[in-house]
């Protein structure tokens, strides 16, 4: 679709400009990336500290929890890097600067997603990937071709699912530009939730996160398969391979939500 290539091209142009701009101040960029790395790693430090006191959490060992942490952190980090500034849409609607985006020959979503692109967010992705790497090295995983493929598929799909939450959150801000925090419950909240094994949480919560807001497909379902464990809801085996489908569906849904939100903005002016 010509629309999609147009959107990607516009997105890329803006991102490149932001990247170039941040890279002109090398020292500052390195410092803030390091800061981002350290700050986001504090979540993992908390888990490390927990495991100095206990041997297992919800029946999962430290390396297994690290595996969960690494997968969700990397996925979330990628989504945050690609479109983490979408919660600023509410601000733009409020001060009228969204209009300046509408007069440009580029899709609004691409411009909003690329807005204030922060390369320093690589810090979160890196620490997630490092933890994941350590966990894989530490664990005794049966590396069947399916499992091997499932790791990158899971990371990308997870990023897609988180990304769609960002987009829906953005679309929601057309309706109510003060409510950007709601999306944080799903993104940051989801990321925190998925660091821990599903056995820790009440069945109802796990069901909600599988069937209502499909965050469980970010890492729980595929990861449990890789770790050789059963999922707590006893779902059929093929579900573990569904993340790409779920991500696709979520992204499509978020695209529709965005369209509706933008249409409403152009009709009511706010």
């Amino acid at each position, binding site marked *: 679709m010509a629309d999609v290539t147009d959107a990607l091209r516009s997105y890329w142009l803006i991102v490149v400009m932001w990247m170039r701009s*941040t890279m002109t*101040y090398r020292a*500052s960029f390195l*410092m*803030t990336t390091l*800061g*981002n790395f*350290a*700050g*986001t790693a*504090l*979540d993992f*430090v*908390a888990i490390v*500290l*927990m495991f*100095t*006191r*206990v*041997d*297992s*959490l*919800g029946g999962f060992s430290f390396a297994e929890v690290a595996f969960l942490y690494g997968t969700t952190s990397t996925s979330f980090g990628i989504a945050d890097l690609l479109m983490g500034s979408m919660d600023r849409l509410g601000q733009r609607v409020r001060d009228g600067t969204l209009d300046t985006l509408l007069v440009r020959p580029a899709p609004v979503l691409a411009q909003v997603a690329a807005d*204030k692109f*922060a390369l*320093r967010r690589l810090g979160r992705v890196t620490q997630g990937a490092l933890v994941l790497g350590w966990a894989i090295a530490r664990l005794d995983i049966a590396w069947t071709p399916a499992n091997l493929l499932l790791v990158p598929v899971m990371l990308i799909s997870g990023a897609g699912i988180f990304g769609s939450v960002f987009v829906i959150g953005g679309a929601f801000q057309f309706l*109510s530009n*003060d*409510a*950007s*925090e*709601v999306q*944080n*419950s799903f993104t940051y*909240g989801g990321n*925190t*939730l998925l660091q*821990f094994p599903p*056995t*820790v*949480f*009440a069945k109802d*919560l796990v069901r909600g996160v599988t069937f209502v807001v499909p965050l469980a497909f970010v890492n729980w379902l595929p990861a449990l398969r890789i770790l050789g464990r059963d999922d707590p809801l006893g779902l059929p085996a093929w579900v573990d391979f569904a993340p790409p489908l779920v991500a696709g569906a979520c992204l499509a849904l978020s695209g529709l939500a965005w369209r509706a939100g933008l249409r409403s903005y152009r009709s009511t002016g706010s």
Partner: protein
Amino acid sequence: MSRYGGLHAGPHAGLYGAVAASGFRRYSTYRVATAAGVFTNTVFGFILAYTYIALWDQRPHLGGYDQSMALTYVWIGQALLATMAMMGGGFQDELIERIRTGDIAIDLYRPADLQLWWLSADLGRAAFHLLGRGILPTLCGALLFDLALPANPLTWLAFLLSVVLGVVVSFALRYLVVLSAFWLLDGAGVTTVAGLAMLFFSGTLLPLNVFPGTLGDIARLLPWSALLQVPADILLGVHTGPLGLARAYGLQLAWAVTLLCAGRALQAVATRKVVVQGG
């Protein structure tokens, strides 16, 4: 610290009281944002609560808490999250913007004290957030979990006093971060890291009492422990009796004074910079 010296009708307690009241009123108008915040706090409260249940199932007296104390700690943490502006939502963005545009130069010449002004406004905001975002999630938690909230009203009073001191420490920390924007290029990056550090070292993710060995000892003496760990321990009855309370308040007060003074020193340097550069 009057600017004109001698007798004058300068700023007085009434002024700062008015600033605090207007801060409270202002944040009370953000109805949608407050509702969204309540939702977020409830969600995070649930996630942490289940995690702590798993932990305390393994070690029933971890950190000196029993399980219901630990669960109460979770909801106190969520109530104080917005109060202490741990993840932003306070004066930081506004003040940083004023620094970036140079409007700060005007503020520095006003007769009211800059730091006290923003502190008053922040106290007003904190009061609203404590009520507006603290009560509902805690009620939710109390309905669904077995909490250990004290019956003694004096304990609650002691808790509130500790919260006030905690807000002052939190303000002083954030004030230092904001002032650093005078010298740093990327304000957003610093505030994010500072926020994450605040979240971790205050004990919101994991109680400082659970931190092992020396790390725990050090963490409990750092300024961030004044934000959540200290008030929570007062409410949970860990710090009791005149000596216990004195030690708790003493820690908070010591950090409040130290950090406020550091803030004033940094402010003086920044003022000179503004004057020299012409705003």
